[in-house]
């Protein structure tokens, strides 16, 4: 990309970000956008570990949560004394970041002694430890109710009080841009490069003079810093932080975001954060089985696209530039119908099972679809769903081989194009 085009793209993206809250004016959409912004920072910080340093963490929520609690304590203190007003709110995420940084430094000394699988286990254990200890100190973590505060206090900043959600949105966008820029810049520093080196080959990194443990520790601490910024923003956004923020669910969620988005590309986790946040809020309004679909989707990605969505985009990029994608579109179009049929069958079966099994305790065995009542206790819907699944699946398998074959052609042609 020429520098000119990337500048235009950046400007367009910025305009979109600023225009969004005026397009989606509803409170729900706005809070979803805010959540996505926070998730983006969090997922990017996670990828500093997984994508860049090769550390699979199951306890990243600790840094997010501790950052959030630090920010919350300062917010309560500032709110009580009125110090700083809106300025304090603007700078609060930095406090969260420092909290995350400190936590990362302290816990990192223990966890980064080992890498790979062991690190994964230890991060899980340490995360579990912090999450279980937190409720024992209500003075620090607020117990079950968590800690809450009012973000509106003191003097406004150019008329901004951070009362309205839209103002908070802009604050989140600003911090997200700064944090993303910071994390992107970090990948281009000596430490960032050595993190990649340690990811690829920790032993060799030793033999070029670097201590892999130190590299991991610093990366963990810095990643904790950015996670803490996200935590601080979440403290401002929700005006509450609870102990469960530290827990396994938050850690698993950020892992899902980063992985589904793609850990191999810098922008991958951004896609993941936006998508997963949207899905978990939106999907749950349509089906009780959303966690099941979610798990299925995740496993599908692990088995078929371990590089996440970003890797799929990356895959299409070169052929697209060379105008070779037109070879693929017809194949995709052919596969679209069987994909849709298979999915419909799968969803049908899952929903039917949910209706008759213990999953939905409310015990409603029928639901309405296109104005038609479907009763899971009768055999017809089952037959239809299973038929769709089987026939769609068989058809898909056939058409997919066409897609795969066409791809091989495209890749060959792309490689030739690249050589030229």
């Amino acid at each position: 990309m020429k520098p000119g085009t990337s500048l235009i793209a950046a400007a367009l993206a910025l305009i979109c970000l600023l225009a969004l809250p005026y397009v989606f004016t509803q409170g729900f959409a706005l809070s979803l956008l805010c959540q996505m912004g926070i998730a983006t920072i969090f997922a990017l910080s996670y990828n500093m570990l997984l994508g860049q340093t090769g550390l699979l963490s199951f306890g990243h929520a600790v840094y997010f949560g501790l950052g959030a609690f630090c920010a919350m304590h300062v917010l309560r203190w500032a709110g009580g004394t009125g110090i700083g007003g809106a300025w304090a709110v603007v700078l609060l995420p930095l406090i969260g970041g420092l909290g995350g940084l400190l936590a990362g430094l302290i816990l990192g000394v223990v966890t980064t002694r080992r890498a790979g699988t062991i690190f994964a286990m230890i991060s899980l254990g340490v995360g579990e430890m912090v999450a279980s200890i937190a409720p024992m100190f209500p003075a620090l973590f607020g117990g079950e109710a968590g800690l809450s505060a009012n973000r509106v206090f003191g003097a406004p900043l150019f008329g901004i009080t951070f009362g309205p959600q839209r103002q908070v949105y802009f604050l989140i966008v600003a911090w997200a841009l700064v944090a993303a820029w910071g994390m992107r810049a970090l990948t281009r520093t000596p430490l960032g490069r050595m993190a990649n080196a340690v990811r690829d080959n920790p032993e060799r990194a030793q033999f070029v003079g670097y201590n892999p443990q130190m590299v991991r520790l610093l990366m963990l601490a810095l990643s904790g810093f950015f996670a803490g910024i996200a935590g601080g923003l979440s403290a401002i956004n929700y005006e509450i932080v609870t102990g469960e923020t530290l827990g396994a669910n938050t850690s698993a969620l950020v892992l899902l975001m980063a992985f589904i988005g793609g850990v191999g590309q810098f922008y991958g986790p951004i896609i993941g954060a936006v998508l997963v946040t949207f899905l978990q809020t939106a999907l749950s309004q349509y089906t009780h089985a959303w966690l099941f679909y979610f798990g299925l989707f995740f496993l599908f990605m692990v088995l078929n696209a371990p590089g996440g969505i970003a890797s799929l985009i990356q895959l299409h990029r070169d052929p697209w530039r060379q105008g070779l994608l037109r070879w693929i579109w017809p194949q995709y179009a052919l596969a679209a119908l069987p994909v849709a049929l298979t999915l419909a069958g799968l969803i049908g079966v899952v929903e039917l099972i949910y209706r008759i099994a213990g999953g939905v305790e409310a015990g409603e065995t029928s639901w309405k679809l296109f104005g038609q009542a479907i009763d899971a206790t009768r055999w017809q819907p089952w037959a239809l769903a299973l038929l769709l699944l089987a026939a769609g699946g068989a058809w898909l398998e056939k058409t997919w081989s066409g897609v795969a074959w066409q791809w091989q052609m495209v890749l060959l042609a792309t490689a030739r194009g690249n050589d030229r």
Partner: protein
Amino acid sequence: MQLRYGVAAFALTVGCFAGSAFAQPVKIAYIDPLSGAFANVGEAGAAQFQAVIDDINAKGGVLNGRKLELVKFDNKTSPQESLIQFNAVTDQGIRFITQGNGSSVAGVLIDAVNKWNERNPDKTVLFLNYAAVDPDFTNDKCSFWHFRFDANSDMKMQALTSFIAKKPSIKKVYLFNQDYQFGKQVSKAANDMLGKKRPDIKIVGDEFIPLGKVKDFAPYVAKIKAAGADTIITGNWGNDLSLFVKAAREAGLKSDFYTYYGGGLGTPAALGAAAEGNVKQITEWHMNIPGTKVEQFAVDFKKKHKIEFYYGRVNVEMRMLAAAMNSAGSDNPAKVAQALEGMFLSTEIGDVEMRKDDHQLMQNLYISTFTKADGKSVKYDVEDTGFGFKTDIELQRKDTMLPTTCKMKRPV
């Protein structure tokens, strides 16, 4: 001419709007977990609300024929997610919300409702709390926009300790609670109240366990046995209760268990025979109270949904809301709230009164014991275990009340 047409059109439009407003249902937002680990609890609650609402609608609805409508919002038991869902609620113009699972969520919602109503005085929202029992909500944190239909944890302890005080056989009490706010409140209340009512009772243990983390309760049971406790008071719920009782049974511990949530969803099934005769619960209602009008309703509910109807207070809450709307002649939350304050109502589970000072419902409470169902005094079993609850004592509502520190701020 033109003008007259215009006026006519205007009148017609207004008429239509007014007419449709009458036909429109009054929506109540139900914000509780519908997915995740506690989805069953949320779903069960939703089903009970729906059943009561259906019943009210079938009998003519509210405000001369308008229907009530339950709209479900999944908060995944997370305070943050609850705030997002609260946004969705206000987006849809819903003016009444109800929630019960988790005092953390309730606390957040009270804050959110207060802030919203302050910033949007023409679109106020009313919060009806059916199960979050933190005493603070009707004391220091009380709000004009919040009404609680469950007895708070201190009131329940008041009732439990009054009962214990009358049993001279009780000498040694062990307090066993989860290590979080609610558990600590239970422990504190028990210590204070027992100390006043029966100073001779020795509290031989005051244990806190991390919430949902203990897998093997045998060591705790061994400790309780060693302490020689004859009675255990516990605010534990879910597995922290059922595992505990099972371990006690396994080790042959014969103490009585005074619980808050012995009848909670799934707990009787997990307890089974292990709880027979020694697990007691405190509730505002249960199936084996003779003469309440809600009995047949609950039986029908169970037939249809295969789960127990156990929230007597859901029935109370919805009927009080309907009555308040009717007496206010409006679905404006501010007016409904005024009508609710101090309201007295004879409901299907008995007479109740909404205390004006703190918006805490006053209702009779029952202490009952998990007993083998015999078709007579224990007519119904719970969760098909063959065991049901049998009343030990009925406490009158005035005996359960505690003074409040609430200084209610009402909108002018």
